[in-house]
């Protein structure tokens, strides 16, 4: 479970997120939506321990990310909005590096890397250096390395940007599989129709403040998520 408790983060005098609270339960696919600059990435980076925050707390499976960052990070995987990798490395070396950081044994990593590389059509490209990849291929490498260590919680920032339709379809399948196993998928997105079909819960953020949060049904009622979002934004 992820518990966001009254989190506030400022950049100098500017408030990026203010008093945000919500909960993500095990087995949820949680969509986090908001306009550009609403504070989505800031909150996500705080959740995965990249940013500090000024007040409040974020609990990952009951552990505070502030007090127990390493234990929290062990059960999480983060996919950033821009596929940041060590570009001079071969893809396989990068994935191995990430797996090493999560203490993944040889058998598990072999099995998972093979599984996800085949799924994303990357099985004969992992021997190349990442700087030779396209944006979408880099994104696939980040996804493979995130999934290779079987995270209990997968946090993604705009995961579908730059991916081909097949990869988007495959990711959706993987996410569904994960939640069936009781894992958590939390992601920010602007693609509202995908979120509407895929996610069980949703939170909408505007100017750093949470304006709506709940199950998808509660939030949208009979309308489409896009309509609800536009109304709230308007």
């Amino acid at each position, binding site marked *: 479970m992820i518990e966001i408790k009254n989190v506030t983060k400022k950049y100098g005098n500017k408030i990026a997120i203010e008093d945000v609270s919500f909960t993500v339960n095990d087995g949820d696919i949680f969509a986090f939506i908001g306009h550009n600059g609403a504070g989505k990435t800031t909150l996500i980076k705080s959740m995965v321990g990249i940013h500090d925050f000024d007040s409040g707390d974020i609990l990952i499976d009951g552990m505070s990310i502030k007090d127990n960052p390493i234990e929290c990070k062990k059960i999480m995987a983060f996919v950033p909005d821009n596929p940041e990798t060590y570009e001079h490395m071969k893809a396989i070396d990068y994935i191995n590096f990430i797996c090493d950081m999560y203490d993944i044994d*040889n058998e598990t990593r072999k099995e998972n890397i093979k599984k996800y590389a085949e799924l994303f059509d990357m099985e004969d490209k992992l021997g190349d250096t990442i700087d*030779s990849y396209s944006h979408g291929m880099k994104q696939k490498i980040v996804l493979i390395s995130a999934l290779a260590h079987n995270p209990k919680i997968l946090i993604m920032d705009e995961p579908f940007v730059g991916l081909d339709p097949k990869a988007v379809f495959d990711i959706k399948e993987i996410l569904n599989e994960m939640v069936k196993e009781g894992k958590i998928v939390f992601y920010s997105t602007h693609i509202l129709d995908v979120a509407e079909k895929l996610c069980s819960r949703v939170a909408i953020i505007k100017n750093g403040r949470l304006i709506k949060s709940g199950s998808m049904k509660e939030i949208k009622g009979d309308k489409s998520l896009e309509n609800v979002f536009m109304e709230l934004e308007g």
Partner: protein
Amino acid sequence: MRKLYSLIRASMTSDMNIFKIRQKKDNKKNSFMFPVILSIFFMFAIWSYANMFFEKFAPMHLQVIVISLVVFLTSIMVIIEGAYKAGPLLFNCKDDQLLLSLPIKKRTILFVRMFKFYLFELLFNGLFFIPLIVAYLRWVEVIDWSFFLTSFLMLFMLPIIPIAIACVIGAIISSISSRFKYKNFIQIVLAMLVILFSFYLSYNMDFILNYIAKNATSINDFIIKLYYPAGVYIKLITKFNLFDLIMFILINCIIFILTIFILSIFYFKTNSRLKNINTSSNIRIDNLEIKSRPKISSLVRKELNTFFKIPVFIINSGFALVMYIVAVIGLCFKYNDTVTLVKDYLPDMVIDNHLSIIIFILISFASFMTSITNSVISLEGKKIIILKSIPLSVKDILMSKIYAALTITTIPILFGDIILFIRFRLSVLEMVLLVILSILTPLISHFIGLIINLKYPKLDYENSSEVVKQSTSSFLSVIIGMLLLIVSIYFISNLVNMFSSILLLLIFLIVYSLTDIILYMYLIKVSIKDFNRLSI
């Protein structure tokens, strides 16, 4: 013109902000003051040295020799180090895609990049030139307005010719290496060859100097023939002539513009070729190595991988280590020449009795002049989020960077030690002490580099040269390294006749151990907070 102004402004704010301060407001003043104070300290040292030289030359009324020497040497320094950093500064930058897609001439892009290079070198030259001029004022009887006008203009003009030469050499290296499969490797080899050739040339200048001396009619004529900008400067401050001044300014401007025109001819092709990356190894996943490693070992491998993939990083960091090996070979094969050289600088030292101390000086040189860690945080760039999101303590992350740097420095230093131990007879205790010092001494440099880089990171860089050569962090580390080397040699020369070699090495071992412990404590207590504050 408006385009050019906007372009310069944009690139200045994004990547030439070498004193960019990231810390909280209350820390801003302190963070800014440190480089300023260090620069003043450095300029004071240059001023003191200049006075020493002026004192020697003043009785013969040859103060101008000192000025021409400093101008000549700083220009040579700019050319040598510019030769390997100019390529990465001009080509294959992160903002290429943006700039090349805009309706701007390639010449304009080149101008902006050369201009940024110029500004940094202006700052660098100023550190030598300003104290030199201030010191000169003390040693001449008559000074008029023309001296100040000429010196002021020279401050801005002197970096131009060395930069133009460096850019041409850098562009040639980039152009040649871009045609090969292993571009980085070729770039490293060519840059190293240029540097080594420059050193070879400067050590074998007798013939050239003799030739010039024979054909020169006066000292001024000699200096002009040796290095035109230095000669003109001397001519102008001894006998001001407006025509010469205007000619000099014109020549510099023409050279700068001409360089841009020449480089722009093959800029686009070279840039495109450098971006070509060999792809499609088509190795099946079953044939790839999938193997687990301990976390720290994996992090160290990643650091080493970064180091060996960035030519400017290798050349910049590896230069002192290469010089160390050259010095070791020189000491082995040209022992008598070395003895004479050391006696010039440290007359009180009895070489045969203090051989281990000579080796220790060499180790100190290699260690303090090799600063790897001053760029390792900045080079993470936006990828810093990877390190910040992995389940590993910040202490382990930082120490892995230290271990990697130590691996890079210790292997060549220990290799040199072994050669010297085989060639010369040292006691076992001396050898043990030297081996330990070969680890403790570079460790100081690595701790300092990392602490400074965490204090002055530059994560939003456009190319690696900017981080490795033109960042506040690299600037401060180099100055601190030089100061540490000077202080070490000062203490060695003063203590060498008071203690036996073994005792002196033991004293340094204790002092360096304590320094390493203090720096380690600072890193894990204070610098960790700097790491946590990093954001992009």
